[in-house]
């Protein structure tokens, strides 16, 4: 599903060249929850953004469902992202003035479809957000916010979910719930790339890779 081949990414900062990723190669398949584990600043988020078509690698190649997203023009790449990828972030990134339902439906902005409303209702119910459907993020608990973000990521039935510390702000119960949904998604044929520094979170993965200073280590 997703394949990294010798992917490197560096940034030119005021203190010279900073390497965030160095010759990273791995792949993740359908039905797999791959956790990339490492300390803060080791390049996990850079790896996730590069996988999501948001950060072009300085070298190497990324293949998403057999297609290099960086060979596409920005519009096509946006479409690819909308159809194939779901993002879940530690900070949730919910739009503050939209309700839970509207936040979930925001994922349909790029892929409009008649079924979006039905699908949103289904996800609201599945994620136990019925009572909160018309509430704005400020009125939600952190667990509800992350469930809303997860529901949004799943609205367009993506082939892969890229999750950046999805349980970083959650308590144990909520973290377990979120991993329950992600496991369900994987069991239904989806695939998840999870980056985290948390060993417990990584424990839910089908496979774990260790990352240090921009490199994958065994």
């Amino acid at each position, binding site marked *: 599903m997703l394949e990294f081949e010798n992917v490197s990414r560096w940034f030119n900062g005021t203190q010279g060249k900073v390497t965030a990723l160095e010759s990273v190669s791995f792949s993740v398949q359908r039905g797999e929850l791959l956790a990339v584990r490492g300390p803060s600043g080791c390049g996990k988020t850079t790896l996730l953004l590069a996988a999501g078509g948001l950060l072009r690698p300085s070298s190497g190649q990324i293949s998403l469902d057999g297609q290099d997203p960086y060979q596409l023009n920005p519009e096509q790449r946006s479409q690819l992202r909308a159809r194939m*990828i779901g993002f879940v972030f530690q900070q949730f990134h919910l739009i503050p003035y939209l309700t839970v339902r509207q936040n979930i439906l925001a994922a349909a902005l790029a892929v409009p479809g008649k079924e979006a409303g039905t699908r949103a209702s289904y996800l609201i119910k599945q994620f136990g957000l019925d009572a909160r459907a018309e509430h704005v993020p400020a009125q939600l608990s952190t667990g509800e916010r992350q469930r809303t973000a997860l529901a949004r990521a799943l609205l367009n039935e993506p082939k892969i979910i890229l999750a950046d510390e999805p349980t970083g702000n959650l308590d144990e119960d909520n973290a377990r719930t979120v991993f329950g949904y992600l496991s369900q998604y994987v069991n239904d044929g989806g695939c998840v790339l999870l980056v985290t520094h948390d060993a417990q979170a990584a424990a839910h993965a089908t496979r774990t890779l260790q990352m240090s200073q921009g490199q994958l280590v065994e």
Partner: protein
Amino acid sequence: MTIWDLLIREILHRKLNFALGVLSVMVASGSLVGAVTLLRIHDIRTNQLLEQKQAELARQMAQLQDDTRKAMLKLGFNVVILPKDQNLSDWYAEDYASKYMPEEYVDRLAKSGAVTVRHLLPSLQQKIEWPERKRKIILIGARGEVPELHKNPVQPLVQPVPQGTISLGYELHRSMDIKVGDKVELMGRSFAVHACHKERGDKDDITAWIYLAEAQELLNKPGLINAILALECLCVGEEGLPLIRKEIATILDDKIQVIERGSEVIARAEARIKVEEQARASIQQEKDARENLRAVRERFASILTPVVVTACAIWIAVLGFTNVRARRGEIGILRALGVCSRRILVMFLSRHVLVGALGGALGFAAGVLAAVYFTAAREGTQIRVIDTGLPWAGLLVLSVAGAAALAVIAGWIPTVVAARQDPAEVLREE
């Protein structure tokens, strides 16, 4: 969920930012529309003032015209009809004509139906030596007024001298101690004194009046006269005299000349012209003053409006940047969700169009009302909005479209910044 839903909800969420944007566009649009309306009202007010002045002038002129007409009704034009070949220098020098014309002229005039001529007094005048008294006198033969048959009878101005009688001027009867009823001899003919006139201080004091036919006999001028006095000729207005001249000349086959006597009516007409000239000068002065005021206002508007519009545009740009800054995370996640930068651009531009259109419409209303009430307060005018006659629909469309364009132009840079925002950078920072 569409991009428009997102737009409306965002506006409702950030009401203050939106309201400030609308307010700034409103100020810009209002200042422009206000300036246009103000100048328009100024023009209308100028027309009103000038029309008022014109009406006042017309009223004054009508009053003066009426006064002149009344004066003419009382005085009329007094004209002397003289033979065509009479040298006027001699006439003015001697005060009587040395040339003659048929007495029949006066009858022709009387029967002609002439509208302008009244009180016809034919006369034969000559300066003679009164042989019996050894002194120079002016002898006037008069037959009294010739009635105009086509008109209602009028009170004669001068009573006729009966046949066989004589009327004497003051100097004549005083110096010779003659009284009414006395008998006097003149050129061998006896006359009874019919009247002794009071002192007039002019040549009348040495004038003797006798019946016309007798004068013609004494002076050997049968059937001839040398002047017809036409008193109180009626013709109102400055064109009166030429009309009288024309009418008399037509009736008498252009064999005469008509001289105007007595200047009171002309003086009144001249005074009226003077008043009119002064009034017109005053109107022109008012017009010039209003034009100067308009030029000042136009200049003021031409400076103030661009300054206000520029300031508002900068303010809109600042608000745009503030909005983009506040929505960094939102833009980042929308991009991550697959919303392309073009749609982000459209979303932000649409917001600016809304700000502009709403601000333009409100500014239009505010500008018009402010101009109307400002003028009302300053000049005490009662001009209603509807009376300004401005092309409202066109101005409204122009205001809304112009304001939307202004908002889009002012918000263009922040919009582009939003659309070009690197989502990876935003998400990493957030």
